[in-house]
């Protein structure tokens, strides 16, 4: 347990504050935008910048505390960068599928024609 120098604490605090601001802005956008397809975009800011800032703050702070390279917060970034691009397009497909099933007219047609009997 080392004493952490002040500039490291300032850098960690700046990263945490920017992460909080990014997450707050994305939540406001998620609440206020009128349509689901528009609403899917602001959380991308939180998913990327929010998690990157917090993980980098963790890497910096724990590396300074333990006087060695502590790299395991990168696992969070790697895990999110693998899982988020799977869930969000699936939810977009859910929205598209349900609107098609409801008979909406302002959505693009399917790429492949439906299979007949």
């Amino acid at each position: 347990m080392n004493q952490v120098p002040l500039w490291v604490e300032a850098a960690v605090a700046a990263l945490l504050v920017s992460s909080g601001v990014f997450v707050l802005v994305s939540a406001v956008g998620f609440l206020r935008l009128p349509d689901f397809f528009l609403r899917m975009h602001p959380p991308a800011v939180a998913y990327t910048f929010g998690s990157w800032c917090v993980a980098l703050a963790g890497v910096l702070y724990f590396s300074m505390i333990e006087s060695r390279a502590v790299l395991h917060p990168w696992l969070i970034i790697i895990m999110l960068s693998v899982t988020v691009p799977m869930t969000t397009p699936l939810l977009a497909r859910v929205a598209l599928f349900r609107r098609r099933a409801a008979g909406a007219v302002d959505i693009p047609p399917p790429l492949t024609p439906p299979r007949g009997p």
Partner: protein
Amino acid sequence: MSALLSGGITFALGCYAVASVLVLVRLIRGPRAQDRVFALDLLYFHAMLVMLVLGIRHRSDMYFEAALLIALFSFVSSFAMAKFILRGEVIE
């Protein structure tokens, strides 16, 4: 821990709390099921960020494993619910 870092931690936690309340409003209002699934995914994500920040605050590595578990559960639950809405069953 300096006042700078503890102030930054408190600010970040406050931002996450306010953002979670905003997302919770979207979760309750809907209007469709996919909005609710997405809002739940975001709530999981905010909980994961809170875990990471608490790990920095208490200088502990245990919070990191909790954050990783929350990220895993978030992926599994969102994927399963989206699949259920899309196809009517989770595993065909």
